[in-house]
């Protein structure tokens, strides 16, 4: 792949026509047709065109994971995805995982374990954790830590994020060192009031 440096048009007054096209995206089970440019990222399509602002823009370079969504059940960084090429795929965002009055198990676990402070990374964390569970590869805490490495939390809520994911992964059970699953008693819910 080689580099190309293209001169900007000198005549800035020349009319610039943005070549948009109609693109149909299936998001959270519904088809949406939007008129977008080829460079519109899936993240921008969700946030700016479909008003699904649960998915967050953090670094916009695939490093922080705040923009994680599920495509055909697999987690990806929506900031590095061009929306046009995601036609025909089943896209799922945090809004599709649960509703305020009907939280998904992961959403409920994040509340129960106080797995966030500012909450900005949380939709990405939860979508990523859902992807991790869908993959079915992780059992231990070390494995979950490694497989959540694409999601950064600037507040440092990692300990509680891990316990929330572990609870749902094992449906209320945790793995102890010898590999056996042991049920843990429910933890008292911590207050998440602002200090």
């Amino acid at each position: 792949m080689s580099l190309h440096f293209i001169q900007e048009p000198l005549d800035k007054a020349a009319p610039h026509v943005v070549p948009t096209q109609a693109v149909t995206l299936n998001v959270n089970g519904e088809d949406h047709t939007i008129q977008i440019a080829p460079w519109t990222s899936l993240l921008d399509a969700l946030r700016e065109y479909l008003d699904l602002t649960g998915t967050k823009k953090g670094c916009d370079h695939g490093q922080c994971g705040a923009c994680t969504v599920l495509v055909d059940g697999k987690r990806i960084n929506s900031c590095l995805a061009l929306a046009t090429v995601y036609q025909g795929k089943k896209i799922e965002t945090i809004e599709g995982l649960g509703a305020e009055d009907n939280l998904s198990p992961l959403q409920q676990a994040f509340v129960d374990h106080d797995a966030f402070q500012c909450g900005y990374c949380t939709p990405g964390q939860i979508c990523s954790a859902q992807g991790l569970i869908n993959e079915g590869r992780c059992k231990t805490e070390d494995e979950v830590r490694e497989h959540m490495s694409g999601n950064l939390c600037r507040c440092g809520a990692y300990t509680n994020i891990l316990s929330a994911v572990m609870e749902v992964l094992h449906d209320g059970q945790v793995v102890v060192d010898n590999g056996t699953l042991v049920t843990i008693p429910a933890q008292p819910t911590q207050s998440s009031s602002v200090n």
Partner: protein
Amino acid sequence: MNSFTLTQATAADEAVRDYAGHEHAAYLGGGTNLVDLMKYNLERPSHLTSLGLLPLTDITSLPDGGLRLGALATNADTAWHPEVEKRYPLLSQTILAGATPQLRNAATNGGNLNQRTRCYYFYDLAAPCNKREPGTGCSALTGPNRVCGVLGTSESCIATNPSDMCVALAALEATVRVQGPNGERTIKFDDYHRLPGDHPEKDNTLEPGELVTAIDLPAEGYADHFTYLKLRDRSSYAFALVSVAVGLKMNGNTIEKARFALGGVAHKPWRDQEAEKMLEGQTASPDLFRKVAAKVFAEAKGYGEGSLHNSFKIELGKRAIVRALKQATEMKYEVNPNVFLNSNP
């Protein structure tokens, strides 16, 4: 990002024609590197030929006992393919040591081969960089260059190839299948990436418009004696400072066949066939491994001392080779490198 047009090709020959029909075109695979580079204005294609609809996602057995990895299969689907896990665990382990689950779910095998260096100065549009802008100079020669190479470097460029997957593909002696305006051809993996020389702007030996369609693995997968040792600044989601992929065939304690490659030290995955021969027919021992490691780094050149500069990679690389060879012969790990593999030995 600059403006561009985009076509979604549905077949390889259609993609090659579409690319040839546009000035400054680029092939779009998973986009995890290209789109990022476009956001930095490092790549400015005026047309993208999207490969997402090409029927090149399959992983299939070859008549000679090998395995064909479709260029559009994702890194994650490749790493977790039952045949790859069973017959080429080295490749599986190596892919899973790189990037994050989100990136591996989008990144394709062909794209992994063509990802560009993460040298600081390549990304810094204000800094001279011969790879980004030929003839401007190499800022890494004297500036902080901890991530840069110590083998096969030139005065034009000391950047490294960032891929983990490619280190395993070099050790496994894969073959790259490409299709271009002049038809199809195959490239031996050792010949796919190149050393910087006077043309660091060229990462590989692809001709203009050529498209990777598949990667073929030979029948030998070294499933009984292998390791990927990746040394980096943090234990997850970081590029290798030094990495070693090893595949061995053993008879008792005798090494019958040895293949290994290094990442993080050169402009391409680094193989030393003379060093591999030093291992073959020999009894595995720390002394032998140290001699082999010394041979590999005999002509290495560091570019400054201290933690900001990369001379430390020479000693680190030697020790990594010794440890990786020990791990592969014994199939025991001093430090378990892989919380990410269920098929761990």
